[in-house]
């Protein structure tokens, strides 16, 4: 299982990659997509919509269930991955790359400090397994 160290994680299985310009890219972790298995539909957030950290903003659905995506850090949605509309399976195939879900303009980058490191998140996932 892949836990890249150049990104941050949440307890609700989102990953966050920052570029230093106050913007962040958000997606679903490899662990989560594997639990969900075949992702077949994604309800993307609306560009321009503002969210507070931990608000639900998108939904990833596999054949069997719907899974909420929460905003890891407060801000405004500036771009969504519209390619997922036709190819939701990208979340399974390339969760940290082509499977990204949205970009957010952070209103409070300090919130990044509350996110989890790869090591901490990995431990959390291992604990979740039986």
């Amino acid at each position, binding site marked *: 299982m892949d836990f890249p160290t150049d990104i941050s994680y949440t307890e609700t299985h989102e990953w966050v990659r920052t570029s230093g310009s106050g913007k962040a890219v958000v997606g679903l972790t490899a662990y989560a997509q594997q639990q969900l*298995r*075949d992702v*077949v*539909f994604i*309800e993307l957030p609306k560009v321009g919509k503002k969210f507070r950290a931990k608000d639900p903003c998108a*939904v990833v*659905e*596999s*054949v*069997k269930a*719907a899974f909420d995506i929460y905003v890891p850090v407060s801000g405004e949605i500036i771009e969504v991955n519209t390619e997922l*509309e036709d190819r939701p399976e990208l979340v399974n195939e390339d969760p940290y790359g082509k499977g990204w879900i949205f970009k957010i303009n952070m209103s409070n980058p300090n919130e990044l400090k509350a996110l989890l490191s790869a090591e901490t998140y990995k431990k959390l996932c291992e604990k979740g397994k039986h």
Partner: protein
Amino acid sequence: MPRQTPLYSAHKALGANLTDFHGFLLPLEYTTISEEHLAVRNKAGIFDLSHMGEIEVSGGDALGFIQRIITNDAQGLPDGKVLYTPICNERGGIVDDVILYRFSAERLMLVVNSANIQKVFEWLIENQTQDVAVNDLSNEYGMIAVQGPLSAPIVEKALGRDAASLKHFHFVSKKEGTACTVISRTGYTGEDGFEIYTPTSQCVSMWDRLMKAGKQAGLLPAGLGARDTLRLEAGLLLYGNDIDDSTTPLEAGIDWTVKFHKEDFIGKAVLLAQKASGVQRKLIGLELVERGIPRAEHHIFVDSNMVGKVTSGTHSPFFKKGIAMGYVEERYSKVGTPLCVDIRGKELGARVVKMPFYRLKTDRGFSTL
């Protein structure tokens, strides 16, 4: 703690994702629901269905008793044939939908849904007549299904010609020592296929035999997830979702399973009255015309008025779109009627379609009919 089936170790070895299903630990999926689903549509899949219940009804009045219990008609059913039928309560509500195996007029077997084993058993005892014995064999038998267009050659390789040449909805029973194995050409996927009941002690060897026989043909183990999407595409009802104690066979659109010419059966009076007055609500099939996945409990709207609820819904792996079953007010049940499904606060466009969503073409699968 959920119970393990005799095939628990086999599932673990195959890397199954196990889930608690009505008290049984069963595979939800081995790889992905879509892959297993398409294996059954294109080649073949094997399912552990050991959670299903088997109740034997025997004695001089076995058939007469069954005729009062079920809404369908087993009087003219030949020995060695299988019948799908609801069992209704006095209000016409469905106690369970079962598969009836007629060994003879004095010995029949009901295959019941796992969540209803106790309920059906008690219902039979409550209505038991003289010269009838009711035995719950559920703990003594496991059940394995092989489903898909290549299931016949696989079953022939594993179990011989007589099993593989069975006609649709027929069965054979084989005695090996005191143990009896029943093989029927039945299923819950919309494909050709077989269901095999075998003593729990022989489940593992039966599973291994079938897996080995199907290896070259591309037989894949399939879980409850694929079973659910397959049966939904095939328009087959799921007890607890699409039907229950408060829905009648007429509302559920399985009118053909209610035989009013029979002298009497439990629920007849209410069902007859409902047939005369017409049903208020009806089970429909719907497909979304927008992207999205309808799920159980989603509300169905027409012109901003709620007219019903989804009872089963999914993303169809075969058609690659959202499909569902649900009850709506009768006047909105005609094929082609535009509807909306409320999915997380958004009203998505849908329309009533003919069920089943997936129908087997006659040039494949049931070629032995």
